[in-house]
C-alpha cells in the first residue's frame, strides 16, 4: 500500500473552506500537546489561551486593536499574492509609513489643529507606498526579485527608524529614552478604558470595498489570471508591469496606513520596535484568509488571538515571546499541508495497482 496524490478534476470548494479550519485546529492541537508535555493541564491552557482574553471588555478590545493592522496589511498583500507579486517587506512599508506620518506630527508639534492628523495619516499612506515603489520599479525595469528587495528594505527601514529615535527625533524631555515626543494630535479612543481607535473600523470597511472591487470588476480576474497563467494574461491584454506596480503600491499604502495608525493610536509616539512583526504575520493572515477579503477578517482575529494567547503564555507560564512566532509558523505549515486537499485527492494504492491507468 502506498499513499498517492490524485489530481481532482476540479478544485474542491469544500476543502477550500475547510483547509484553514483544519490548519487552525491542528495548530491548536499541537499547542495543547506541547503544553501538556510542559506540564500544563490542556483544559487550563485552552482556557487561558483562547477563552480568557474574550471574557473582558479589555481583552476583546485588545483583540480588535491587534487584528486591525493585521487585516489592513493582509488586505493589501492579498491581490499581489494572487498575481504572483511577492511583497514580503510589508514590515518595512509599515515602518516607513509610521516614520513619514510621525515626521509630519513632529514638524507641527505641538499643534493639534484638526487638519494635522489627516495630513499625518496621508503621509503614512504615501510613505508606505513610496517604500513599496522601490521594489516595484526594480522588478519592472531591472528584473530584480521583489521578494529580496522588499525584504532588504525592511531591514533598512528598521535601521532608519532606529537612527531617528536614538538620534534627531529623540524626545528632548524624555530622559534619554529612545522614543519621540508623545504626539499631540493622536487618534481618539472610541470606548473609554480601551485602546480602540477609529482605525479598527477601517479594516472591515476596506475589506468590503476590496471584496466589491475584486468580485465585480475585471481587476480580480486580471490578478488571478496573471498569477496562474502569465502567458494567457499577456494574451488577454493584462499589462504585467501595471499589475506589479499596482499590487506593490496598494500593499505599501495599506501597510503604511497600518503603521501610522499604530503610531498615532495604541502607541502614541515612535519607539524602536513598533510592532511584534505585524508586517510578516500579515502574510500568514492573507493565506489563512485564502487571499479573500472576507476571509482575511476572521483570519486576522484568529491570529490576533494567538498574539494575546502568546502574551498570556509569557505571563502565566514564563514562556518567551518567541512561542508566538513558532505557532504562527506552525499554522502556516499546517495550512500549506492542508491546501493539498483542495486540488488533490489522497489515495491508498496497492503496489499491484501501480502503473494501471
Amino acid at each position, binding site marked *: 500500500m502506498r499513499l498517492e496524490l490524485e489530481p481532482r478534476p476540479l478544485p474542491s470548494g469544500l476543502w477550500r473552506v475547510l483547509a484553514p479550519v483544519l490548519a487552525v485546529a491542528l495548530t491548536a492541537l499541537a499547542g495543547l500537546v506541547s503544553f501538556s508535555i510542559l506540564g500544563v493541564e490542556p483544559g487550563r491552557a485552552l482556557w487561558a489561551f483562547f477563552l480568557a482574553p474574550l471574557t473582558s471588555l479589555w481583552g476583546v478590545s485588545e483583540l480588535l486593536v491587534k487584528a486591525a493592522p493585521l487585516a489592513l496589511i493582509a488586505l493589501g498583500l492579498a491581490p499581489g499574492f494572487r498575481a504572483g507579486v511577492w511583497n514580503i517587506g510589508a514590515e518595512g512599508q509599515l515602518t516607513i509609513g509610521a516614520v513619514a506620518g510621525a515626521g509630519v506630527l513632529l514638524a507641527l508639534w505641538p499643534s493639534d489643529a484638526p487638519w494635522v492628523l489627516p495630513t499625518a495619516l496621508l503621509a503614512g499612506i504615501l510613505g508606505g507606498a513610496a517604500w513599496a515603489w522601490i521594489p516595484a520599479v*526594480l522588478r519592472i*525595469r531591472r528584473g530584480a526579485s521583489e521578494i*529580496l528587495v522588499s525584504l532588504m528594505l525592511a531591514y533598512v527601514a528598521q535601521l*532608519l527608524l532606529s*537612527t531617528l529615535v536614538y538620534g534627531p527625533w529623540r524626545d528632548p524631555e524624555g530622559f534619554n529614552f529612545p522614543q519621540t515626543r508623545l504626539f499631540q494630535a493622536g487618534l481618539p479612543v472610541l470606548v473609554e478604558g480601551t485602546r480602540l481607535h477609529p482605525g479598527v473600523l477601517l479594516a472591515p470597511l476596506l475589506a468590503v470595498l476590496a471584496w466589491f472591487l475584486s468580485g465585480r470588476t475585471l481587476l480580480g480576474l486580471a490578478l488571478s489570471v496573471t498569477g496562474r497563467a502569465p502567458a494567457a494574461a499577456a494574451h488577454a491584454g493584462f499589462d504585467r508591469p501595471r499589475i506589479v506596480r499596482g499590487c506593490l503600491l496598494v500593499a505599501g499604502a495599506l501597510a503604511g496606513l497600518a503603521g501610522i495608525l499604530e503610531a498615532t493610536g495604541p502607541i502614541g509616539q515612535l519607539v524602536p520596535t513598533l510592532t511584534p512583526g505585524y508586517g510578516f504575520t500579515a502574510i*500568514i493572515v492573507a493565506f489563512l484568509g485564502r487571499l479573500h477579503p472576507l476571509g482575511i477578517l476572521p483570519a486576522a482575529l484568529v491570529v490576533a488571538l494567538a498574539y494575546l494567547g502568546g502574551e498570556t503564555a509569557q505571563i502565566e507560564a514564563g*514562556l518567551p515571546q518567541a512561542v508566538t512566532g513558532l505557532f504562527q509558523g506552525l499554522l*502556516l505549515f499546517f495550512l*500549506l499541508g492542508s491546501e*493539498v486537499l483542495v486540488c488533490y485527492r489522497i489515495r491508498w494504492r496497492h503496489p499491484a495497482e501501480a502503473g494501471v491507468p
Partner: protein
Amino acid sequence: MSPELFVAVLATVVTAATPLLLAATGELVAERAGVLNLGVEGMMLVGAVAGFATALGTGNAPLALLAAALAGAGLAALFALLVLVLLADQVVSGLALTIFAVGLSALAGAGLVGTPVERLPRLDLPGLSDLPLLGPLLFGQDALVYLAHLALPTVAWFLRASRAGRVLRACGENPEAAHAMGYRVRLVRTLAVLFGGAMAGLGGAFLSLAYTPFWIEEMTAGRGWIALALVVFAAWRPARLLLGAYLFGGVAILQLHAQSLGLLPVPAQLLSMLPYLATVLVLALVAGGRQTAAPAALGRPFLPPR
C-alpha cells in the same frame, strides 16, 4: 597600508564571507535541482542555535558542527515534505520555514543568551601557516572556512562533470524529461534540499561559534536572504559565488571598521544599512541579465505522472 595590515583585513573579509559562502553554496545546489528554498535564514538560525547549544553542552567542536548541519537539514526535510510531497507553493513554504525557525531558534536559545562559548579552534597547518603574509590568511583559519572553500570547487566540479550532477541539473531544467529517462526527480530534489539545509546550518554555526561566539535571537541578521541574492548574482554558477561572497564580506568589514574607528560622522545604524543596500544595488544591477540563467523549472512543482 602596510602589507601586514592588508593581509589582516583580507583575512577578516574571508571570515565575513564564510557564512554567506556556506549558505549560498547549499542554496545553489537546491536551486539547480529546481527547488527555491526561501527558508535559508531560518535554517541558518536553527543551525546557529543547535551548534551553539551542542558546543556549550559537550565542548566538542566537531559534534557541534554535526548538530548544526543536522538541524539545518532537519528543517529542510520539513520543507521538502511540504513542497515535494504535498506540492505546496515553494515561496510561501520557504517563508513559513523562516517564520517557524525564527520562533524555534529563539525558544531553544532563550536560556543561552549571554553565555560565552569557546570559539571554533583555528587549525594551523604545520609549515604553511608560518609562511610570511599569506600563511595566516590562507592557513590559519578554522574548519568551517576551509570547508566553505573546499565545498565550492567540489560543488562546481560535481555539477559540471559528474553524472549525478548532470542528473541533478536535469531535474532543475526539465523534470518531466528527467522522469521519463527513469531518474527519481523527487529523490534527487529532496537530497539537494537536504544538502542546502545542512550547509545553511553550518553557515549559521559559523556565526554563533566563530564570527561572534555567542548566541542572540535573529543573529543571522538577514544573511540568509543575502545568500539567496548571491545565488542570483552568481547566475547559478559556483565560481561567481566566491566573488559575490567576498564582495559582501568586504562590505560587512568596511561597515564594521567604519563604525569602530568612527571614520564617518554618521550614526552606526546608517552604516549598518550598507549590506542591505548593497544587496538591493547588486540585484538592481545584475538581476535583469540573470533571468535566462535561472534553472528552467526553478520553483515549479513536479508531480510524477502515474
